[in-house]
């Protein structure tokens, strides 16, 4: 049944009927499986992958390395929660290595992101330091190459 997840992860717009045909299962079984995944929060949402560079929308994305002091009894989870609850935070990962959290921030302008770091993130008690890296260009995101020329370039050959 995991094949259903694989298919949906690539394209969540396929209908239950289409997925049923692709997997050789009945539409009813696929429907049930998807409902169960949603219930169990295996499927946590359906989103659209947007290449914002192609739109008029002004936006900047930054990846921030955050060093933390772990809190007694709670490790990093509590402070991570304080950080990821901000709507500006699009992703938040606990890391191994020389820093502790990767925080991905999205804002309208560089200034907006910088202000968020200065006013919201850096002053938190457990935050020891931050390093902000702005994204200049997205080549590939969530397994999708953005400027992928998907035209069929195969030449006509008889085989």
């Amino acid at each position, binding site marked *: 049944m995991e094949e259903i997840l694989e298919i949906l992860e690539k394209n969540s717009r396929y209908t239950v009927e289409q997925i049923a045909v692709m997997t050789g299962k009945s539409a009813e079984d696929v429907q049930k499986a998807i409902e169960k995944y949603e219930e169990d929060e295996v499927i946590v949402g359906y989103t659209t992958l947007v290449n914002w560079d192609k739109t008029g929308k002004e936006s900047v994305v930054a990846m921030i390395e955050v060093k933390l002091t772990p809190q007694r009894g709670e490790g990093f989870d509590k402070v991570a929660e304080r950080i990821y609850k901000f709507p500006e935070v699009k992703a938040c990962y606990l890391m191994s290595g020389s820093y502790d959290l990767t925080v991905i921030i999205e804002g309208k302008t560089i200034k907006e992101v910088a202000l968020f770091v200065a006013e919201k993130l850096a002053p938190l008690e457990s935050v020891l330091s931050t390093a902000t890296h702005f994204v200049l260009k997205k080549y590939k995101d969530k397994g999708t190459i953005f400027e992928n020329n998907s035209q069929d370039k195969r030449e*006509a*050959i*008889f*085989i």
Partner: protein
Amino acid sequence: MKPEKMILQKILDIPPSGIRKYFDLLNEMKDVISLGVGEPDFNTPWNVSEAGIYSLEKGHTHYSSNSGMLKLRETISHYMKRKYGLEYEAKSQVLVTVGGSEGIDLALRTLVGPGDEVIIPEPSFVAYQGCTKLTGATPVIIKLRAEDQFKLTPEQLEKALSPRTKVVIIPYPNNPTGAVMNSDELSAIVKILKDKDLVVISDEIYAELTYEGKHVSIAGFEGMKDKTIVINGFSKAFAMTGWRLGYVCGHASFIKAMNKIHQYAIMCAPTTAQHAAIEALTNGDAAVDEMVREYNRRRRVLVDGFRKMGLDCFEPLGAFYVFPSIQKTGLSSEEFCEKLLLTEKVLVVPGTAFGEVGEGFVRVSYASSMKNIMEALKRIKRFISVIT
């Protein structure tokens, strides 16, 4: 000197490809969805391409030995054992060729000439008949039937055999029908062939693309290994068509003889491709698996789509082709393809391109994106509703 007068009659006799005209049309039209192509739409897995690039950077730009790099032959030998349980000695029983098609040509040229008969089940890949005719041998065509799911039956084989039969071609998984032969079905064929003085050329280029159960090689049956030449290659399984690399495995005497032609005509297969191929066989399983799963989904979508249109479509279990019957439309295969291309801009190939017996069928390749396949089905449905 008139150039055309200098050309051998048997070459002049080769008819122009039946689908050339569609390709010419295709080049003039825009926004055509081509389900006519017989090669993967996937690019070569990046680790494989990267191994080829690395070999160039390292300066591996020379000939290899005639029969191919020993390391590659060892890797092929290991792969054949691992995948199909077939044991071939790397040094004497494996020859690296320029695609599976060179292997077919070498095998036929090594084995047959005027007076010999070559049994060819059709519909199938055009090169079997073409290469047979070039040797001067006589092709004996078995007309496979849709009601047998285009499998070779022992009765049909028995009827086609004669004292002059020297080679039987076993083309499964099959281009263009997508048919496969399972172990029981092959076993019935083996019973007839194993005590006869003839050679089987088993074209297993699509062996990795099977969708229910694993591919079974006829060479694996008792008494068959020494009389079977297995053709395989990298094009279909690893999406490496442009690298032009294949291989043949068989009895040392056959390999030695085929290598004699190979060394004059080809010298050796491209070295860059050989380096990439080692990576493909060693670390390519996951990529192949992912492609096979995607092909399988597309296959189901196409079969379902054609059946819902009311066309008979047997379930193909191999390669990347669906072979629906278009008899209900009242059109011939060629008319169907031409009209479909001109009115709905979808290219499929008439079954007749693979032998007369393909009349009434079209070959639809699912080596194209799911998006293209779904759009093509919509257009074909519209086309059929207009003409029927």
